[in-house]
């Protein structure tokens, strides 16, 4: 009996037993779900170098999912259908196909929560384990197996899990017991000290710890060292452990997590044996109208995948939370930061202050000012011995002083945002953003290919509420790069007209007016319209998409340039 049949049998058993025992069965049954399809028809565009021969056989893409969850009493079951027919450009072509990659059955009560099938989970901030799905990245590292959480006493939660991670469309034979990727097993404990000891006073204190292992069989790797062919002695079992605490006292909070990974030679770290370490500290204070936060992170060799030779965006067991702001406006998003799992040291500060209403500057509605700063450096790396290059496969790789910055600054972001409502009809958001972006190192290009980009961006986003139903939003952005680095200067204009609560229309243009290459000074125009009805949204657009990186949570995918007609339909119930 294969795993799917077991899940089905458990699901049917629990459903029938609930049906027989519950008098008001249907009153306690809930069904919810969601559906989304994103499609694009690709058109040739001579100015962008997209010719018919390039598009040959690849004129459309469509990504679709439908998710259905059912619950009755303590029982839940669900599944997700996905179809990439074929995937939209920029998504991994290995995603092509359709099927049901995610299904589960679970039971929970006050003391226990059991899931069989596919599940997502995160231990702490994710340094030891995080399985999650991000539709816009085409990323899914769900674990297929079993998960049990026990709450034996108030304030205590212990979770254990084991299973194999999703890798695009694993064939049926490889669903479980897959020899091509490792078995992930882990447990996590979370202890809310105040609840355990009935302390109903501040400070609130939480402790936690995680332990996660990966077991991979039949590993082999040979390398050349000192002109001799060497076979690596590879660890079948690689473990990561992490400890964390959280302290909160009124508006103050302090969170810290430290993770340690034993030797984990892999393709991602060039087969070095150095243990991985990560330290994350985040502190914040907030009160009415004011908030401040400061966070620091050091990551050293912390890629942890369930397949030794995987290098792409898949099969990550853990997650390194980014300490850089994810910009929502299009131009600063040209230079997003991708987490460097092999090593980075970063610092982030954020201050937000709301000038009260009915003051000279705050005016009738108040005014919000937010400043945000983040900086990321490479870690220090020194040779382990004279004559052995840094990152030599089959060695410890390098020595690194914990507090010493590496010689390369990777990224800086300073931004200031003012949000102001002028009167009942007009409000505006005004931003200045400075970005320092080591494009070669962040995007793994050969050093010197693109160099450093220093970009200054100004944004004005003004909304005019014409009346109770109609509003017009106008967005203007300018981005200037020092010495016209990379693609030089950009300007963006967007007009969005909304008729509440159903309709919206927008027209926008990103103009690369400062490109050093005159032939590349293109307009990336876009026209779109949409209709919203309750939880459903329909939209269609026509225009150009510039190439670039799309990053969510420090995880990025490349988006190629395209021209075409796109549509999107989404709904939930």
């Amino acid at each position, binding site marked *: 009996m294969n795993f799917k049949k077991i899940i089905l049998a458990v699901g049917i058993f629990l459903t029938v037993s609930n049906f027989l025992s519950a008098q008001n069965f249907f009153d306690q049954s809930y069904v919810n779900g969601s559906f989304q399809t994103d499609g694009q028809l690709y058109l040739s565009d001579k100015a962008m*170098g*997209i*010719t018919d*021969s*390039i598009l*040959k*056989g*690849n004129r459309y893409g469509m990504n679709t999912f439908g998710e259905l969850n059912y619950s009755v009493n303590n029982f839940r079951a669900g599944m997700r259908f996905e179809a990439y027919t*074929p995937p939209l450009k920029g998504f991994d*072509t*290995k995603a*092509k196909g359709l099927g049901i990659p995610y299904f589960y059955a679970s039971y929970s009560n006050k*003391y*226990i929560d059991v899931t069989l099938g596919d599940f997502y989970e995160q231990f702490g901030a994710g340094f030891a384990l995080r399985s999650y799905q991000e539709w816009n990245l085409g990323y899914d590292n769900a674990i297929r197996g079993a998960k*049990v959480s*026990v*709450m*034996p*006493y108030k304030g205590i939660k*212990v979770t*254990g*899990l*084991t299973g194999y991670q999703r890798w695009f469309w694993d064939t049926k034979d490889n669903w479980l017991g897959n020899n091509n990727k490792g078995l992930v*097993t*882990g*447990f996590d404990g979370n202890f809310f000290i105040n609840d355990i000891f009935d302390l109903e006073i501040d400070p609130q204190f939480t402790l936690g710890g995680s*332990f*996660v*292992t990966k*077991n991979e069989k039949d590993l082999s*790797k*040979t*390398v*050349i*060292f000192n002109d*001799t*062919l*060497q*076979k*690596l*002695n*590879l*660890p*079948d*079992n*690689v*473990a990561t452990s992490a400890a964390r605490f959280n302290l909160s006292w009124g508006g103050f909070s302090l969170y810290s997590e430290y993770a340690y990974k*034993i*030797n984990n*030679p892999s*393709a991602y770290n*060039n087969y070095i*044996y150095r243990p991985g370490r990560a330290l994350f500290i985040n502190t914040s204070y907030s009160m009415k109208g004011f908030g401040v936060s400061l966070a620091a992170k050091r990551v050293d060799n912390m890629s942890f995948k369930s397949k030794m*030779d995987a*290098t792409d965006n898949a099969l990550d067991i853990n997650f390194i939370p980014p300490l850089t702001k994810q910009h929502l406006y299009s131009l600063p998003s040209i230079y997003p930061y991708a987490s460097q799992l092999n090593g980075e040291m970063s610092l982030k500060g954020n201050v937000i202050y709301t000038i009260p209403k009915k003051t000279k500057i705050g005016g009738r509605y108040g005014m919000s000012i937010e400043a945000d700063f983040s900086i990321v450096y490479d870690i220090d790396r020194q040779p382990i011995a004279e004559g052995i290059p840094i990152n030599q*496969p*089959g*060695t*410890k790789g390098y020595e690194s002083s914990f507090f010493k910055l590496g010689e390369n600054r990777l990224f800086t972001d300073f931004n200031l945002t003012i949000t102001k409502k002028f009167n009942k009809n007009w409000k505006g958001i005004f931003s200045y953003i400075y970005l320092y972006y080591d494009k070669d190192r962040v995007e793994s290009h*050969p050093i010197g290919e693109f160099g450093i980009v220093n970009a200054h961006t100004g944004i004005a986003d003004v909304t005019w509420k014409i009346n109770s139903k109609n509003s017009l939003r106008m967005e203007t952005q300018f981005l200037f790069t020092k010495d016209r680095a990379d693609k030089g200067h950009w300007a963006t204009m967007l007009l969005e007209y909304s008729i509440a609560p159903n309709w919206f229309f927008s027209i926008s243009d990103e103009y690369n007016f400062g490109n050093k290459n005159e032939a590349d000074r293109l307009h990336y125009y876009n026209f779109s319209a949409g209709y919203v009805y309750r939880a459903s949204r329909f939209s269609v657009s026509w225009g150009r998409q510039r190439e670039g990186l799309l990053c969510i949570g420090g995880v990025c995918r490349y988006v190629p340039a395209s021209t075409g007609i796109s549509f999107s339909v989404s709904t939930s119930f």
Partner: protein
Amino acid sequence: MKSLLKGSFIKYIFLTIIVASVFSCDVIDPNNYMEPIDVEVDTTEVLENKRVVLIEEFTGHRCPNCPGAAAEAHKLQQLYPGKVVVMCIHSGFYAMPMGLEFSNDFRTPEGDSICNHFSPSTFPNSTFCRMLVDGNYLVAYQDWETLVEEVINQDAIANVKVKDITINENTIDIKVDTKISSESSINANVCAFIVESKIIAPQANGDSVDETFEHNHMLRGAFAGAWGTSILGLGVDSKSFSIDINPEWNLDNCSIIAYVYNSSTLEILQAVEVNLK
């Protein structure tokens, strides 16, 4: 403390997970990270210093235009002996068996995997060293000749050599040595396949069917899956492979194709074909 765990089988589940987890750590002694292995790797004689072309030809026995591609491949191999390796992958609609006439099934799981990845919408079709030509992996066979002349004069950054071929009763064992001499380490894989020639079987040809068509370079099996296995991205590496012999193969007409490709871009960096016997 009220404990659900007490007397419950749940605690055994947890204990099992915890014990299994705690003891699942293989900390390697720093003095024992690697050990020399006794494999003779010829670092001086490894093949060509110029590129050898590998054409993956997507074809099918019911594809009426495919004999044209086969003829072109044959011509190029005559023109550039030893410089053009062709692997005919029977996959897709035209490769499906149909009726008595086309009852053969020459498809392979590995061939389907490669074909599905590049998704040709028309046949015949091909990849040419899996290079992007005008931004597209797929190349019409009419373009091969121009491309061959360009590529075979390029210096190879990778070399590949098939050696120690042992034909056992049920298996074939081989060793594949590789060498990559780029400026910095790359992500690279090596693949090895069995191809068979001189297979006489029906083939659609224009409006008619050639009942005695000679199929050559037909993909029959893979030593290391469709996408191979990773190798050292800089320097020399060596892999040992084995494959089960399919009784349908005529080993006298079989050869081994091996190639090294950049697993980030898929580009095939160097290829070689050697006769099995």
